[in-house]
């Protein structure tokens, strides 16, 4: 049962990633692209967790944890750059 769930989840996430890519490439605003990237990171975290469940291996969860913890920093930095230019003031 869990196998089907994982497959379904991965299919959804793949679709989500492709849609993220679409927004990322199309824009039109820079902010759209940044949000697309951020969503992509969140989807990637989900993909990692699903791979871990599928392989029954918890070592990947740490990658997911780390990505969750620091992945947003890039997004924040992009935003700060747009808002202020200098990200460390």
């Amino acid at each position: 049962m869990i196998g089907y769930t994982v497959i379904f989840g991965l299919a959804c996430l793949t679709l989500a990633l492709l849609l993220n890519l679409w927004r990322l490439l199309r824009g039109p605003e820079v902010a759209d692209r940044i949000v697309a990237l951020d969503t992509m990171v969140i989807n990637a975290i989900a993909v990692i967790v699903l791979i871990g469940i599928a392989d029954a291996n918890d070592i990947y969860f740490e990658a997911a944890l780390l990505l969750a913890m620091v992945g947003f920093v890039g997004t924040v930095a992009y935003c700060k750059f747009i808002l202020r230019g200098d990200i460390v003031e």
Partner: protein
Amino acid sequence: MGKRAATCCKKVTAKKEYRSQPMAVPATLSTLVVLPFVAALLIAAFGGAQRWVHSGLAAAGSAIGLALILSVAGPVIGGDILSVSAPWVPAIGLDFSLMIDPLGLMFAGLIFGIGLLVVIFGHFYLADGEATGRFFASLMLFQGAMVGIVISGNILLLLTFWELTSLSSFLLIGFWRHRADARQGARMALAITGGGGLVLIAGMLMLGIVAGSFDLMTILQSGDIVRASPLYPVILILILIGCFTKSAQFPFHFWLPHAMAAPTPVSAYLHSATMVKAGVFLLARLWPVLAGTELYTGIVTSVGLFTMLFGAWAALFRHDLKGILAYSTISQLGLLVMLLGFSIEMAAVAAVLHILNHAAFKAALFMTAGIVDHETGTRDIRRLGGLAKAMPVTALIATIAAGAMAGIPPLGGFISKEMMLYETLEISLFGLPWLVPVVATVAAALSAGYSLRYAWQLFFGRPRDPEPQAKAHDPAAGMWISPAFLAVLAVLLGLAPMLIAAPLVTAVSSAVIGRAVPEVELALWHGVNTALVMSIIAVAAGVLMLWRHGTLLRLYEGVRHLDAKHLFERGLGMMDAAVRKAIMLVHRPSLQRMLFATFAVVALVMAEGAWIGGGSLTGTREGLPASPVAIFAWLLLIAATIAVLLNERQRFRVLIYISVIGLIITLGFIHLSAPDLALTQIAVEVVTILLLLLALNLLPKTPPVLSRPSRRWRDGMLAILGGLGIGGASWAMLTRDPGQTISSFHLANSYSGGGGKNVVNVILVDFRAFDTMGEIIVLGIAGLAIYALLDTTSRGTAGERLRTWQEDMPHSPESHPVMFVMATRILLPLVLAAGLFIFLRGHNEPGGGFVAALVVAIAFMVQYLASGFDWTDSRRRIGEHFLIAAGVLLAIATGLGSLLFGANFLTSAFGYFTLPLVGELELATALLFDLGVFAVVFGAVMQTLAQLSHISQRAARAHAARSRASSAENGA
């Protein structure tokens, strides 16, 4: 007395072989070499301490060295040769081999003894607020290098120390960095003596090959083989160039007067007993091997003779006190070289005695020149005069020393000068038996002239300038005690030579010549002979020159002289231009072109291999099935890459796409079961983006197109070809079975050998820890290089561009949103805990110092981002430079620690411990090593962040100031 010398010589012949040595000998010898370096390190470590700490450490080092030398003096003069040897790089015949025979003993004694006096003098000479730590540390470094030269038992080791003297003398001569003449003088000395050192290396290597060994003892016994070798002339000339550059012989003499820009204690040390004597020492050391041929006698005698004459002539007309002493040093060195060139045994004895004399009186003279400079404020002899009244002690010391240099009885200089004149009668140069005696007498007369002038015009007669005269007074005893001691020595060398010098001179001469010398009779009075007549003529002519000095000076100044410095600089400039041309031929400063060349060569080599090897591109290994997710991720990667290409000029957008690429690569690592790489990739990605954004702020966001379309097409084609090549190579690799690889060894031995289950980490910190150590050193250097490069942007054209930098984007008014600040502060301990966890667990599970450092760096970078640079930086306790240095040192110390347990460098140890609550815990020394890695990586990353944001802030401040000014104008 003569009898005593003779018995001494017999002993030498009897005990030529190595004797069984007491246990203390190796320790003594190693201590002698290590001691000054330890002193230098200690002084540098206490760089900020009081002056007396620095000079005290230096004095203690020199005094212990001197005591050690004295403790072995008895047996060594008695004929023992103490030696110790340990293999260092046996593959090239380099042993760490030390040997002390009478020659080495005398020089080491001079180096430590005069060194001690110079340290005492220097303590009082240097002004308050000068970098005494740097001064005494460099001085001790130099002392160690000199001692190394004179007691090396292996010529490769000797060469190492030889180069070290060139480097450390560079630091000493250029000690007053703010003065252009000091920098130029230091550079010139390094170029000449360092260049000569390179030539010497070639000569010594050939000598070692001809003699069949680099061991000094073996070489000294194979003189006949060397002289018979067809390579002998080449070896001789190469080694002579090395000696002549170091000992300032014509035509390499000109660096020495320019080295006078050094502080006077340095001059007193370098130019009396050490640096310039190194060349003389090597000539004496290799005398049994090289001397005795017509070629040797011809070259060495004529160079020495000419240098002696030329230096003495030039010295007579200098006005700077140290200039006089510089040229007199050149002349006296010429005398020594000439004596060694005679290839007569008694001439070698005279040379040995004169080395002693010269060390005593020249160091004393330099110190008195320093005292006069110190107390009157000038070194120009034309402004000084009649100082004897104001400074009687200095006058007495200087007059005695100058008398010794002039060769006036009853001082030491008289004996050696007379011996020298006596030996000149034995030699016939170019078939002319009168040439050497006549020229030597003229030179002796000139040197009597300049020595007497130094004493007379300085201390007697009428004062010429009231201003320096008014201040003149004798210094405190601390300053004159050193030269006074040397002056007493100069007197004793004349009055009681048999007592204090003869045994040493006999033993040293035997060591120079390689067999026992006939009786050495040192006395002031030998009865009336030709040498005495020559000596009297010389002194009389010297007095005459002093009397008629004005006439001679006008004569001298009427002639146009070549400016050696000018010639040197021009030659250097020409060489510079030629080298630049040669470099431009092979190394255009264009990154594209260099990359093209590199890739083209690699491609050609690989294509050739493929052509010859043949076979199909696809191997026989079976493929793995690709999951739909992997295929979609792959498409995502390609789409993002194409997006980067298409948006190449929208730099900000490109950065976002690059983030996508990094993300997909992370997923790829996880898909292929490489969690270590995935963690690293995540952290690296964030850090990269932050640093790139910092840099992008000051760069154009949409750069203009600079290259022509044809060129862009060409580069595009190249890129496609390169991509296809690498892709093909990967394909070929991945479709084949790897066979027996090193990874299977790593997998098998990771836990049993390195005590860790995480093979990647064990490879990094244990199996290949030496690689890692090299890498963190490179990373540390890169961090410091970023500092050095970006720190200069406040000056020059870069600074100008920064000051006129225009902000090119609209700004939001809120600089530090509160929500963001609060969130990041909560995040900090969490991320730090994660970092600590990753670090500690690294040995057994994915993680380790590198990833942990990046994670922790991100935690701090976020604080900079959210709360601003000033807020965060004011809470930082540890500097980045310290982190980098401490990390490298910790890694090295961990590696060295294993040596204490008799294991190889960087061998790790590990054990398991059980703690209450925590449970079983593994501790490995590799963890300490990993901590070093952590510190370096963290330091380098934070260093880069700090430097980049410094620049941005400078630019922003300049921009704000300008906009304020313009708005104020508008308002008015």
